[in-house]
């Protein structure tokens, strides 16, 4: 049965190996140069060099290849699900060949088990190998960008693609068993997989391990842009900020991302000569007289006014709560995500076997 499953999967295996080989060749040709550039120029960039422009040059090297390689692992699991998983049973049903296959001297349970295991493991292996290649190729770029925990990058490096491939494949088989038609099953697989993957990366992934929490004063944005992230000493470069909430003295959430209220602004309102912080309450401190209006030199409020606002914020007890995942949790998070998707794949495998027995006799 293994040989026959292999015979049937020749074309798709060849396609996958071709993709893998192309990626390997591209990576092997360009990867060492990229790493060399990083090791010799970027990593050794000292205070006397123009590090910003060096970094920019480095990041823009092999720009086209970056754009091509980055999404391959994003779509690969979906393709494995749609082109390997969905037709596995559905095509046999559609073309009637199940009547040929299931009347040979192999029970159909064994037929499905072998095909499922073989194609599923092959899909996982291909996703894993491609991830190995790409993780290595992007290693220096990731080192510079420090974004390994962001959803777009987290799922296309390390071991997570293996879990996605397993899940997408099992989803495809299940869709094929339930829908019994190849094209609709493929479409359903793509839609459901994309939906679950997106939803998971937004709503579940950051919370796989309870994020760390740091509370700090809310700092006014300066003329140069937003204030530095509070608790900057706790949150290091490369950590993933999960949420930034603004709370009042009672601990109630009154805003997000460094602002108060739905508009996310910090506003001072003067009524009957008393300044108050919009959305919070009257300021307990005195404000400097605003002789020249709010517009100081350069169109910005004068410095002493800003200081008064900051003092008002502090004295009203308005603070910011930031939750974040430290970069040190990268591998535990990778394992959690991979195991969850592999677990879902096993559940779907059970479901498809059960439905296969129940509905197709």
């Amino acid at each position, binding site marked *: 049965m293994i040989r026959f499953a292999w*015979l049937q999967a020749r074309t798709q295996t060849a396609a996958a190996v071709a993709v893998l080989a192309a990626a390997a060749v591209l990576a092997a040709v360009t990867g060492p140069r990229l790493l060399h550039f990083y090791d010799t120029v970027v990593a050794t960039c000292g205070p006397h060099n123009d590090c910003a422009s060096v970094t920019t040059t480095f990041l823009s090297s092999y720009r086209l290849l970056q754009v091509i390689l980055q999404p391959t692992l994003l779509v690969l699991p979906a393709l494995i699900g749609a082109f390997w998983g969905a037709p596995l049973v559905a095509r046999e049903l559609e073309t009637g060949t199940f009547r040929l296959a299931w009347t040979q*001297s192999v029970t159909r349970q064994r037929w499905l088990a072998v095909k499922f295991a073989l194609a599923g493991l092959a899909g996982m292996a291909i996703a894993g190998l491609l991830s190995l290649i790409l993780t290595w190729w992007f290693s220096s770029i990731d080192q510079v960008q420090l974004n390994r925990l962001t959803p777009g990058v987290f799922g296309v490096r390390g071991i997570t693609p293996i879990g996605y491939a397993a899940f997408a494949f099992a989803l495809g088989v299940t869709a094929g068993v339930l829908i019994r038609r190849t094209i609709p099953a493929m479409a359903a697989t793509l839609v459901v997989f994309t939906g679950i993957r997106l939803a998971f990366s937004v709503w579940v992934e950051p919370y796989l391990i309870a994020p760390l929490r740091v509370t700090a004063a809310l700092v006014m944005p300066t003329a140069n842009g937003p204030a530095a992230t509070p608790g900057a000493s706790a949150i290091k470069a490369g950590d993933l900020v999960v949420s930034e909430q603004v709370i009042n003295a009672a601990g109630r959430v009154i805003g997000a991302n460094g602002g108060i209220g739905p508009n996310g602004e910090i506003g001072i309102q003067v009524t009957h000569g008393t300044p108050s912080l919009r959305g919070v309450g009257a300021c307990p401190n005195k404000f400097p007289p605003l002789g020249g209006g709010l517009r100081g030199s350069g169109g910005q409020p004068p410095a002493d006014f800003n200081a008064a606002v900051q003092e008002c914020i502090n004295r009203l007890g308005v603070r910011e709560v930031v939750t974040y995942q430290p970069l040190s949790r990268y591998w535990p998070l990778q394992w959690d995500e991979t195991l969850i998707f592999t677990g879902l794949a096993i559940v779907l495998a059970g479901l498809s076997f059960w439905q296969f027995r129940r509905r197709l006799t």
Partner: protein
Amino acid sequence: MNAIVETGAVGKKYGRQWALRDCTLTIPAGKVVGLVGPNGAGKTTLLQLAAGLLTPTSGTITVLGGQPGTSPAQLAKVGFVAQDAPAYARLSVAAHLRMGDWLNPDWDGELAGHRIERLGLDPRQRAGSLSGGQRAQLALTIAVAKRPELILLDEPVASLDPLARREFLQSLMEVVAEHGTSVMLSSHLIADLERVCDYLVVLVASRVQLAGEVSELLASHHRLSGPRRDPGTLPANQEVIEASHTDRQSTLLIRSDGPVLDPAWTIRPVTMDDLVLAYMSRARDAETSRRPGLEVVR
């Protein structure tokens, strides 16, 4: 008598629709069994139950002493040629034979190779580009080379042209002659069955209307024609299957244990065609009379 297929009130339901219901029959070994009946009688369902592709909703079915499709050994004992002889369009003829080799413990590769050669099939040709007749022959080859005790064929010649049909049935007969395999095939073309079958089962609306050796059936049925008379006046050992009357003449198809002695009758032998049609129309008439008819309201 050792039965190859034995069913006990077997039934199969798809959703709320019964495809086969309360079907009880026994088929003896060593025969070429023709399964005839109108469309929707349950022939395909019965064959797929016997092949193990379907499991019964109710009742029992035993094939060669085992439950169909439950074990590799059971599957190995039964060869199945499905309707329209499905094959993997993208795999070559040779790949299909390799499949047979890999999936069947008793595979006779020599036999398969010889058959393909004799049929003039190119082993490298993809199954998708074979003609209907060639594909049916390929399917038969796979079913035969697994060396089963029973071969089931579901409408094997329905979609073939007359020449391919004759060739197919001929090669089926060769297999039977060489290996003594039992065969059960369904068809609604009685002429085809007449050529190959020695046992006949007429199935109408899941019920077996007639079953028996073809030679015995033909010997025990007669077509009588003579002056008009009431069929009720016939001797007790003569059962009327079909009767038609004109003003002066009666034509009957009867089943009789003994010879017909009444000199008023002109006796003619029946053909298989006559038999099947007579039993099918009798079953249909019984079906219609069971339903409430229209009544005239005064």
